[in-house]
């Protein structure tokens, strides 16, 4: 980098700090809230000085919520488990189906291939609520409503187009000559896919998988309509904190902290792949 004048450096530092504070503030505030009781959260004026308590986390983990009206059972840990299960399996299925499909769309132009690819993308255009009503009817008829199988199937509407279109771009970026060279060296198309195309598109696949995971994790409306209590993910389960005796801000904050942790951890872990993915264009030649 070019040498900067001290003034420039200071201004740049201030600008960066402002941006970080702006984006991190809600998360920090929620993190602080999760260690407070409803009373300290709601006092006026608000203050960041308080005696931390682990009650919120304890309530979530034991599943016993103490409210003014008595003890309430909440299934937060189960919801969290559902979220992990649904998201992981959905992304796994979407990768298993989407990556080979993306390769086919990238490498083999056949009659109608663009139309099929576009149709798959169009699943992302439709407002979910529009799809939901007929889907609910069909799922009840087929016996798929309130099953993990049915939910994972519906989650493909979210994950599959995303993975297909992102990964396809990465496959298209790999020079066809590189694959030809491997074929000519005596390897089958399948081993060319496995040994050349997959590793070279690896960062892209990781990025697409991560993105699909986040979308699946954050999904609310499909799970709200199609799953009952024991199959609900955290996004829907959080509604339980709106109780008859008021909104449990402390527990909501703790629940948010717990539910963003997996995605955050995954994103941090996958960061290097994402960076690699962005610089994939540099591998030519």
């Amino acid at each position, binding site marked *: 980098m070019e040498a900067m004048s001290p003034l420039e450096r200071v201004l740049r530092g201030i600008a960066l700090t402002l941006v970080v504070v702006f984006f991190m503030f809600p998360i920090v505030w929620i993190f602080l809230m999760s260690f407070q009781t409803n009373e300290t959260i709601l006092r006026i004026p608000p203050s960041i000085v308080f005696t931390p308590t682990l009650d919120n986390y304890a309530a979530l983990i034991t599943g016993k919520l103490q409210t003014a009206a008595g003890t309430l059972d909440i299934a937060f840990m189960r919801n969290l488990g559902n979220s992990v299960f649904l998201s992981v399996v959905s992304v796994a299925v979407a990768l298993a189906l989407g990556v080979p499909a993306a390769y086919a769309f990238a490498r083999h132009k056949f009659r109608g291939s663009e139309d099929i690819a576009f149709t798959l993308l169009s699943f992302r255009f439709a407002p979910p609520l529009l799809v939901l009503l007929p889907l609910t009817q069909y799922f009840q008829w087929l016996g798929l409503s309130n099953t993990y199988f049915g939910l994972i199937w519906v989650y493909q509407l979210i994950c599959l187009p995303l993975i297909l279109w992102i990964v396809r771009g990465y496959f298209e970026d790999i020079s066809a000559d590189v694959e*030809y*060279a491997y074929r*000519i*060296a005596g390897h089958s198309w399948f081993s060319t896919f496995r040994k050349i195309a997959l590793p070279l598109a690896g960062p892209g696949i990781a990025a697409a998988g991560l993105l699909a995971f986040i979308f699946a994790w954050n999904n609310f409306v499909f799970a709200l309509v199609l799953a009952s209590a024991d199959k609900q993910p955290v996004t829907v389960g959080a509604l339980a904190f709106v109780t008859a005796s008021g909104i449990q801000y402390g527990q909501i904050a703790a629940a948010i902290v717990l539910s963003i942790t997996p995605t955050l951890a995954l994103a941090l872990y996958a960061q290097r792949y994402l960076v690699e993915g962005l610089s994939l264009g540099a591998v*030519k030649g």
Partner: protein
Amino acid sequence: MTTLQLKNIVKRYKGQTVLDLSLDVADGERLVLFGPSGAGKTVLLRLVAGVIDPDEGRVLIGGEDMTDVDAEHRGVGMAFQNFALFPHMSAFDNIASALTARRFSKEAIAAGVEKVARLLKIDHVLSHHPKALSNGQKQRTALARALVGSPPLLLLDDPLRNVDAKLRFEMRLELPRLLAAQGATVIYVTQDYKEAMALGDRIAVMFEGQLRQIGTPADIYDTPAELEIARLFGDPTINLLDVVPQRGPDGAFAELSGVRLRLPGFGPEIVGRACVLGVRPENITFTEASAVGAIPVTVEAETPLNEKTVTLTLTARRREILVSRPAGMPGPQAGPAHLAVNSRATLLFDKGSGRLMRPSEPASKRNGEAA
């Protein structure tokens, strides 16, 4: 070693024909495919390698119909113009990829790779990934990958295109020996006529997906079948002058600045036809004004090119004529001069079709015998 036959191959892209030809390559021959970019040379190589399929026609390798055989079963070696190395593998693995598919033992693979790497002087960089290799090393790695399996048919797609001039010169000297040692039938694609002349047993000249001329380097240079081919071979380029041959007492002649230039072998059939006269710069010399057939010109500029000196001259009608002479031979630097054209070394092309016109002498002789 093996033979290659392409029978009536047609390849179209989006309704446009990009390749339409037949070609025979003999056992152990080194055939150079020469032509401008877009001529279909690379498409042809890919068809032979089997990574793209022809729309019509058959590909025969060693007499066997390989048209419907997948690339991995054709047993050819290919080096790509852009190297096409596997970026996520070391140079060793890149080269070894041509052996791993054949289930050789680890030791046999290592030995094979080492051997070809030593031959190509890249044995010290085998552990490097392509990113860490210089352009020349990348090019040698790509070449090594094509050579390592000792394929009977070797396809080299302009392998020296993307390397610097010094390396290109070195490789141009080194390649013939390397390829001869390999004993393979070779198809070599290039856009550089010097490379084509240096490396080819025969040169096949392609334009717009068609084979326009095929012959030894000397054939192509001395009797190019078309104006375009004449223009592409030779540095400095051939002199091309529009002429309309006229009838003279001893056959046809062309007039250059009022001087008659005999067109040996040509008879009345070309008189009055729009033609292009082609004379290579080395077939023109400076001469005395008094010499028979001396063409008056003015010397414009002189360019020394190491082993030769090229002079640009202008005729009275300001037509450019290049004259080449061996370096060290004295010549006029400026002002008026006179040229002598070796009329035996002239080429006459039909202006309309651009095709070379052959002297009709043998035919007229036969007529004479009949009479």
